[in-house]
């Protein structure tokens, strides 16, 4: 077997790979953002006074943590149409990944919200703030310091999970690479090119995350010691996202 470096380079700049990488990036970012919102809502619902609402969240967590995310992706894509809901592969993938991510984010959001002491909320209320203002201006900014490191880990985990959407024929990076390779049997070059893209994107995420955490740490001594970039790269961050 001969390895062609020039072919890898050619793949890297080819429209199919660039588009695949963009699709992967879009799926990752939109799923994580919706996951944060869903997770926050679930965390707030878990604090509700009403048992039915708390019960609802428990059911949600049970469903989405208790089944494989690949199952959820395929379920959304193949079952929803029979109820008249027809979504594109991209939307189905993002929807399933977001719903699944929300179930895991809920725990992260909950720990963040609980890190803000009750007295802080009372002080906000005493100043005449509404419950929403207390959440927005007092609780969330302080919870963010606790939430940010694990959310960064989830983001990197999501980048890797996003490859599962290739199972429902979404032209993400993995499917683009696999289809290119099967057309001319240059598997090594095509998959290496995809791997380079994945590594480049996760590295960028890690660098961004480290920079953001450093910015927060300069202001406030963090309970967690800073994690070096090398340790991040090899996934020794302690709270690495779970394999699902």
């Amino acid at each position, binding site marked *: 077997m001969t390895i062609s470096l020039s072919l890898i380079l050619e793949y890297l700049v080819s429209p199919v790979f660039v588009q695949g990488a963009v699709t992967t990036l879009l799926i990752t970012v939109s799923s994580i953002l919706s996951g944060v919102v869903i997770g926050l809502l679930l965390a707030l619902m878990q604090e509700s006074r009403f048992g039915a609402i708390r019960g609802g969240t428990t059911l949600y967590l049970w469903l989405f943590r208790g089944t494989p995310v690949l199952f959820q992706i395929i379920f959304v894509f193949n079952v929803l149409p029979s109820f008249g809901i027809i979504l594109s592969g991209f939307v189905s993938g993002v929807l399933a990944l977001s719903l699944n991510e929300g179930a895991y984010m809920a725990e992260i959001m909950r720990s963040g919200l609980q890190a803000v002491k009750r007295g802080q909320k009372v002080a906000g209320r005493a*100043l005449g703030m509404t419950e929403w203002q207390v959440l927005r201006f007092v609780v969330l900014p302080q919870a963010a310091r606790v939430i940010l490191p694990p959310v960064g880990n989830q983001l990197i985990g999501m980048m890797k999970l996003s490859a599962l959407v290739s199972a429902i024929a979404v032209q993400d990076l993995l499917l683009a690479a696999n289809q290119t390779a099967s057309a001319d049997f240059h598997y090594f070059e095509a998959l290496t090119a995809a791997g380079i893209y994945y590594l480049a994107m996760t590295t960028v995420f890690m660098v961004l995350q480290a920079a953001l955490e450093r910015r927060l740490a300069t202001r406030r001594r963090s309970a967690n010691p800073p994690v070096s970039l090398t340790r991040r790269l090899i996934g020794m961050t302690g709270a690495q996202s779970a394999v699902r």
Partner: protein
Amino acid sequence: MTGQVQAQTATAAPLLSLEAIDKSYGSMPVLKGCSLEVARGETVVLIGPSGSGKSTLLRCVNLLESINAGRIVFNGAEIADTHAEAPKLRRRIGMVFQNFELFGHLSAIENIMLAPVRVLGLSRADAHDIALSLLKKVHIPDKADHYPDELSGGQQQRVAIARALAMKPELMLFDEPTSALDPEMIREVLDVMVELSQEGMTSLVVTHEMGFARRAADRVVFMEKGEIVENAPVEVFFSGSGNPRSQKFLSQILH
């Protein structure tokens, strides 16, 4: 000063009037028929053993605690305990807590500016001016850009007082404002409170600092087991001729 306030009390309706307040946690009563009036410009000190309900009574005033029975009248209007009304009422009543409760993610000046900007809708520039003048008033203008964890307890509490004053409240509630402070810092906070009182800020203060009561209070209210036992002008209260239960408590805390 006391004479002037009493004259005022006679002519004007009280700023705050608590009428037969009952409150219980489950089957445990914590407030039993508490009635209390605070006139505009008056400083009233609430004292009593721990668990006597004085902090709870204070928290009922701005609806941080709900009451089971009775009426709260503020500025002539009965206070309705609803989700919509509570924030509006609290804009007009400042509160200072035992543990300061400054917002940890904001600098001193941002702590003071937050509610004027977000709740009252002031511009940042206006709020900044107000905050700076209040930091001067509490004698720490040089700490404007410090974060709470860089300030001493006494400094934090003074920022907390400035934060409450920034809303231009008609009434200030102090919930044991010096109980969490080291002895050498108590004075600096009490001095600010005395100045406020002398400027005519209406204040209801839960404290064990009898020195403060002597210096600034118009009246002292003694509570025990959820009941108001004595409510007397400060000179009467400290004259030794008052209620025997409050005199006994006084002798205990003064050793």
